[in-house]
């Protein structure tokens, strides 16, 4: 992984070469400096400030008047004279845990379905057939549509009185009365999942397809000659070979799903069944004027995602660095 160690030509001591390298290195530093500075200003510094805010009692109207309060926004407890202990802070807040649970449910279910469907679509697109280009163009459409627009489109299709989904299901006899898909607490999560799967399966499919196309065709021919059943070929040849690409696609999607905000904010506003960590955190930050409390929640979300990434890389022995994968 560390490419500086693999420097070739260790014996070249020519002065011109080393000065050329010096010049190149110096140029590289100057080329990187603006990008690194900008990135620090828009990502690093705001992140540090957010974490700092989470340990203060800053409010939205007075950003600089906050006092250091330690872990109060996370968890504190007071023992009453009666001996009862009362916990408060985010970690003792049921709405926060509800949001954590919603986020995990949403991420795991949507990414699993998308992986399976995406792989299926990729397997279809990996075949040669008439109109393949057209199909590939068609599946790019959900990906290109802005999330807000797709949330509105599906909101209309899932409308309880005039929606086409209810109309279709009624015609098929699957339901006998209109369902309020997005506002009903039992179906809200289901609606969100449907829309997310519809919107992001294409991305998954394209990444899987790229992985599939790297598998040499002669392996399949050999399997065909040996008369091995296609299902066995899939599980013993295709799946292991496409796994690295699949792992990367899954982590990309998972990170995206864990921070989901816009779809849920628009499709099922204020539904307890779908509010995710991002939604709850923004609510506190901006709408409820609990700026520091919201910062604590956003910091927790960041920590959860960071832990997840480390676990995933560690468990999957995943190498995200492009150098060795090729």
């Amino acid at each position: 992984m560390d490419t500086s160690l693999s420097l070739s030509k260790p014996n070249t001591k020519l002065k011109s070469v080393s000065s050329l390298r010096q010049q190149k290195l110096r140029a590289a530093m100057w080329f990187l400096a603006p990008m690194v500075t900008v990135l620090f200003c828009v990502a690093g510094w705001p992140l540090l400030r957010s974490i700092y805010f989470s340990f203060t009692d800053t409010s939205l109207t007075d950003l600089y008047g906050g006092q250091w309060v330690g872990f109060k926004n996370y968890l504190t407890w007071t023992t009453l004279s009666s001996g009862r202990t009362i916990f408060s802070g985010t970690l003792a807040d049921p709405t926060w845990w509800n949001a954590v649970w919603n986020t995990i449910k949403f991420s795991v279910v949507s990414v699993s379905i998308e992986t399976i469907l995406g792989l299926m679509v990729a397997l279809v697109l990996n075949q040669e057939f008439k109109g393949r280009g057209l199909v590939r163009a068609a599946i790019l459409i959900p990906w290109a549509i802005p999330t807000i627009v797709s949330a509105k489109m599906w909101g209309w299709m899932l409308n309880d009185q005039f929606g086409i989904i209810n109309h279709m299901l009624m015609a098929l006899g699957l339901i006998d009365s209109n369902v309020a898909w997005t506002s009903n607490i039992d179906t809200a999560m289901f609606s969100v999942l449907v829309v997310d799967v519809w919107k992001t399966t294409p991305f998954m499919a394209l990444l899987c397809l790229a992985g599939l196309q790297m598998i040499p065709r002669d392996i399949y021919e050999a399997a065909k000659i040996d008369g091995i059943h296609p299902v066995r070929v899939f599980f013993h040849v295709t799946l292991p070979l496409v796994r690295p690409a699949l792992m990367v696609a899954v982590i990309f999607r998972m990170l995206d799903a864990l921070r989901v905000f816009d779809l849920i904010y628009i499709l099922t506003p204020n539904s307890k069944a779908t509010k995710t960590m991002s939604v709850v955190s923004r609510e506190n930050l901006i709408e409820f004027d609990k700026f520091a409390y919201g910062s604590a929640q956003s910091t927790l979300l960041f920590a959860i995602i960071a832990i997840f990434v480390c676990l995933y890389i560690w468990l999957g022995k995943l190498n995200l660095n492009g150098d060795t994968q090729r």
Partner: protein
Amino acid sequence: MIKRQLNSVAFYLLVISIVVVAVFPFYYSVITSFKTGTDLFSVDYFPKHFDLRNYRDVLNNDNFLRSILNSVFIASTTVVCALFLAVTASYALARVRFKGRGLLLMTILAVSMFPQIAVLAGLFEMVRFLGIYNSPWAMILSYTIFTLPFTVWVLTTFMRDLPVEIEEAAIVDGATPWVIITQVFLPLLWPALVTTGLLAFIGAWNEFLFALTFTASETMRTVPVAIAMLSGASDHEIPWGTIMAASVVVTVPLIILVLIFQRKIVAGLTAGGVKG
């Protein structure tokens, strides 16, 4: 023989169902956008009505037109800034060996996957401090957080694939790194720049969280926020026809772009994903 035909029929049915599921919601919103009044309340699978009133409403709505202009300005400025910073940086990352390169690349990748909510409080403070709250610059600044790492990452993978010989020949001719980038690599990188720029543009065009948080007045909204706010005062008066017309207006250009650059987009997405 019959089994084989059955198989291919089943295959084509699968293909057709994929296409129908992918396209139908958009098709349905196009149909809806041509309906007004009580026509909206009847479910039609095929176009029956052709009333342009929704489009006239949308295109006569000054605030909506303003939001399109805002979005175009914000997304293009963000992309130009990101590309400008990314070209030189990705040369250094792809072509120069230095200590900590792997770590820097990983950090850049990590930033592109940041949960945006984690920086919202800090960015809010910064936007207020700089006095750019409720102006396009707030979005241009904040969108850099995902466009810059993305463009750097994808351009680095593209640049790594350029043949070494070209660079060596240029070095022999006495070219400085700056000359190599601008005179030798840039002409070869145009396709990659277009793809990356387009993907970053789509990302900035679609962004919602920052745009919602950093704007206050109707004239400063971007397209996604404007569409989200088109809803009426109560649940019963959501102007579905207008919303669908507005959605079609802002989506059709994107879809056309995506279809034109189809191959390049797939290449760019997979360069950002599978290779790295």
